[in-house]
């Protein structure tokens, strides 16, 4: 069942291409503001490269900090897109249609942003190529495939390639539509990148099949990416707080939790900004809310398991680590904040249908989840290092520096800027998909009202 007005195809085109065709003043303002933040971040990064990692708050032994946290955070966000698209597409979930594009685009930009962080974080970024490209093979020296840091870029770049293709294939019909609605250089541009898509039956079939195939192929990659990211930590035997077998599923489910929340945030923004009330509807938020209820609770289960295993071991170093997380300020404050914002405030609210169907409330709760999920990673990584092993003499703490915070803030602007610019050139809601939904829908009478209902051909 879909709760919306009837819309004609030309109306859909006009609505959904609005962002592409018109450039209102706020666009420039937001673009400028985000651009400033990104420039600030780029400046901070340049300064960091020039002076070195001394500018961070990292120390001995807390050698990984906010950059790695943010890396994992963005990888996590990137999990929503493909998960939503692929799973919902494969399961023919009808309500997915307006949400997929935004989710996929978020995947691509957050993943690309995430990939920046390991490079920013290494001591000699100018030699980071060495890491993934075996340019020293003349000496018989290849990258060390035993290192999770080799698996990591492999997984991320596979995922990035896959999800970019995914976006592109789903974009083709809309690019064609854009081509047909534009003139001048834009027309030329869309002509080229729409790869001659004319909407013939064969083209449609290929496009749909490509989408389904990619969906099926990318799901294992999606599961593997965050598993592998978790092994950056899980394989670290020396950090007892990290050396946990449960990390892979725990990280994947956490990624989905934060990712879906990020999609909700984005959808709410799109609905407000582009006036897409007819396309991004309360039912979508309702459905996403229900999904998040399940995902977040599964995530909480893993979180408690991880904690339980640690305490169950009864090892004094493990217990000291948990003590730091739960009882030592400021970590204890972070801990409480993270539990409240990532679970105990939003999830009970989502139990109420009225909340799930309130766009402002969903917007706020989804933001809250992501604040909590950033803190969650911070609380996993940093205390683990700060309480590494039993050498209490070495135990320390960590606080990110201004440079780190600036760069991290800029990463949010980078993602936002990416999505914004994307919306300038491509429709953020898949037009053809919406139309397809329209075709499949019929109207049924409910009382005195005629509402659209959906039938699917099998």
């Amino acid at each position, binding site marked *: 069942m879909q709760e919306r007005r009837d819309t004609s195809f030309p109306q859909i085109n006009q609505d959904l291409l609005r962002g592409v065709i018109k450039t209102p003043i706020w666009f420039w303002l937001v673009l400028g503001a985000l651009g400033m933040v990104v420039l600030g971040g780029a400046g901070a990064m340049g300064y960091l490269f020039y002076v070195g990692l001394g500018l961070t708050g990292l120390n001995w032994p807390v050698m990984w900090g906010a950059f790695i946290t943010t890396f994992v955070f963005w990888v996590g966000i990137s999990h929503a897109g493909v998960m939503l698209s692929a799973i919902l597409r494969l399961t023919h979930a009808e309500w997915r249609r307006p949400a997929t594009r935004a989710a996929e685009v978020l995947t691509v930009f957050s993943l690309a942003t995430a990939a920046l962080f390991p490079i920013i974080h290494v001591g000699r970024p100018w030699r980071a190529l060495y890491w993934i490209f075996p340019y020293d093979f003349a000496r018989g020296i290849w990258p060390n495939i035993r290192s999770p840091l080799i698996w990591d870029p492999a997984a991320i770049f596979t995922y990035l390639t896959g999800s970019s293709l995914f976006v592109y294939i789903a974009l083709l019909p809309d690019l064609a539509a854009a081509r047909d609605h534009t003139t001048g250089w834009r027309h030329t541009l869309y002509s080229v990148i729409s790869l001659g898509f004319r909407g013939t039956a064969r083209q449609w079939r290929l496009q749909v099949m490509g989408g389904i195939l990619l969906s099926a192929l990318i799901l294992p990659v999606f599961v593997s990416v965050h598993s592998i990211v978790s092994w950056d930590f899980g394989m670290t035997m020396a950090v007892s707080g990290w050396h946990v077998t449960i990390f892979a599923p725990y990280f994947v489910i956490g990624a989905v939790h934060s990712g879906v929340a990020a999609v909700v945030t984005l959808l709410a923004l799109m609905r407000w900004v582009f006036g897409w009330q007819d396309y991004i509807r309360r039912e979508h938020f309702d459905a996403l809310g229900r999904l998040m209820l399940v995902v977040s609770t599964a995530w909480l289960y893993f979180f408690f398991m991880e904690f339980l295993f640690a305490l169950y071991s009864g090892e004094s170093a493990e217990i000291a680590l948990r003590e730091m997380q739960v009882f030592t300020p400021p970590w204890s404050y972070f801990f409480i904040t993270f539990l409240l914002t990532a679970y105990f405030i939003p999830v009970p609210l989502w139990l109420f249908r009225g909340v799930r169907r309130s766009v402002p409330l969903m917007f706020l709760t989804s933001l809250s989840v992501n604040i909590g999920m950033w803190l969650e990673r911070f609380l996993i990584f940093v205390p683990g290092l700060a309480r590494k092993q*039993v050498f*209490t003499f*070495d135990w*320390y*703490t960590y606080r990110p520096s201004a440079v780190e915070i600036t760069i991290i803030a800029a990463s949010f602007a980078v993602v936002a800027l990416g999505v914004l610019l994307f919306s300038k050139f491509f429709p953020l809601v898949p037009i053809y998909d919406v139309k397809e939904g329209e075709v499949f829908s019929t109207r049924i009478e409910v009382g005195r009202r005629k509402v659209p209902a959906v039938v699917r051909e099998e």
Partner: protein
Amino acid sequence: MALTRRQFLKVAATSTVGAVAFVACSTPQDEFLIQSPVKMPEDLVAGADNWYASVCRQCPAGCGTIVRVMEGRAKKIEGNPLHPINRGKLCARGQAGLQALYHPDRLRGPRRRVGERGSGQFEEISWDEGLSLLLSRLKELQGKGQADTLLMVTDPVDGHLALLVKRFLRAFGGQHLVYEPMEPTTLTTSLQRTFGQDLIPHFDLENTQFLLSFGADFLETWLSPVAYGVGYGQFRQGNRRRGTLVVVSPRFSTTAASADEWIPIKPGTEGVLALSLAYVILSQGLASPQVAQAMTGGAGVGALESFRPEAASTITGIPARDITRLARDFAQQRPSLAIGGGPAAAQSNGLFNLSAVFALNFLVESVGQRGGVLNNPSPAIPDVGPASYNSLADWVGLEERLRTGQPRPVNLLLTRNANPVYGLPSQFASALSRVPYIVSFSSFMDETTAKADLILPGHVYLEEWGNSVPNPGPGFETIGWQQPVVNPVGDTRSFPDVLLALAQGLGGETERALPWSTFRDMLWEGAKSLHQRGSVRAADFESFWIGLLQRGGWWDTTARGGQQTTKAPVLPREPRLPSFSGEGDFHLILFPSISLGDGRGAHLPWLQGTPDPLTTVAWQTWVEMNAQSAQKMGLQEGDVLAVESPVGVVEALLYLHPAIPPGVVAMPMGQGHDAYGRYAQGRGANPLSLISLPKDSDNGSLAWAATRVRIRKTGQRVKLAKLEGFVTPTQLPGTEIVPEAQVTR
């Protein structure tokens, strides 16, 4: 075998050095180049290292060194394995000597003051100019019959340099004062009185079974720390039963940390404890009757009635049963050895304390015995002895002389590597400023040199000749031989060479007293009396001299100290209690930093960056305060505390110390310099400025552990620069990182 390129690459590539070198082929220009090809002296082979034996002068202990020199630059100082004092080992300060040699703020050539005195404005002059300026001053004094108004202030000088200074002043006139803030005069006086020896004896802790230290921090800075460190290692795990160390001290020192038992004691009551131990030993019949008779003046244990453990307990704060137990252990686990120093000596009753402590060795018959107190022989070369010291009383006398001009004024002050302006209370600094002309031969712009009118900078020890007569020696005749290991880095001259040049310039009696053109010549001639015996054997003197330099010294293990001649002392019948200055709630104990010493090491960044072993603080001055009592006062680590004594206030950072007694605070010496180079200047505080002059000390030495202070919070807070982390490090339950073993071996 001809090595082909392929073979070479194979060999090199399989080694790490090879791997590093290969990759280094692609090292960009901006990465550091270690060595630049400079003009190479002809006798040096590029890439080959030479080792020169010499002597460490970072403290007066006189350890032997070997210095690695490559391409004319000194690269590493190691201990000389042949040298009987340190047997191949060095302490942190000895290791850091290279930074004095290659210090960026060394005085690189002669200078003459142009601005106000103390303004730091100097102009560079030539040596000829500088020497003639000084010579004309000296001649002027001579001409006016005021030669006796010359004053020379030096660091402790020994060997031929001491002889040279003595002869110079005897011929020319004038007074010599040795500046050493940690002056061991209380120690040497008490040793003299107890053992009848001018030289410090050899404490044979290597072979002792029970070692009892009253504040003598022999593992840190006391007398000859490396020698004692080597001995201590053997004492612990040599091929015999493991020795037991008990430290009695008002502060938990690094030495106390290594002890099997630390007994905190009320400051200044060490002598009472020692005599109480004597009481127990005598009353329980643990000493031989003859000794008991001798040491009580025939009166028997009754003479020591006022030191019954119960009575001593109230004075010292140590439970009576612990005193009894300690006395029994000390008397029964022979050979046992009692030593004292540090805060036990730096009291108004320091001489009483140390005399009582050292007397214990007679009680257990350790004097002259293996594992006990062994006499050192008099110097191998007559007149060429160890350094002598002046006590604070001499400085008080000087201050009065400078202030009043009576009996004679001081018209010319020559100073060399001594820094009284830093280390002595401020009235000395202002008194010294009255001297019309000050000439400094120091290598660094320290606080005293900054007041000079003429600076004729000396070499640092790695650039100059010398010899050393260690005090304490190893129990037999020993002279360390110091040779320059590199050419001078700057336009400096060796102080003894300058004195010889002055003597020649002065002519007359002074020239006749010092008929050598260089100090090396003097040493050469001095060494002749060593030829034909001892560790270096050679047919002709030339070869002997080379052998002497190669070995870094000369020693004769057969020429040992004589038998004990002095009889066991009669123990005092009444306690002498300490008196303190100041009314504060806390007793202040100063201690020389293990790395900076009394402040002499503060200019070297290696030493500044060496964490204190217990607090792990570096670069700063801290106040050690009992963690619990400080927290009760609402204090936190890093709080800037004002420490107030009757004569001064200094500010330092709080360190929450779990092991210091609640009523005691402790501060390290060494920081708080106004000058002395970029690494020392303007950093930390000098706690010596809290110490007032002694009032009733027996021999007028500085009682730097006899001040009570008030502690005030200033409200500021500075992060401590320390190695330890965020929590108080302890071993977690169930873990074994510093486990204990109960092994009797």
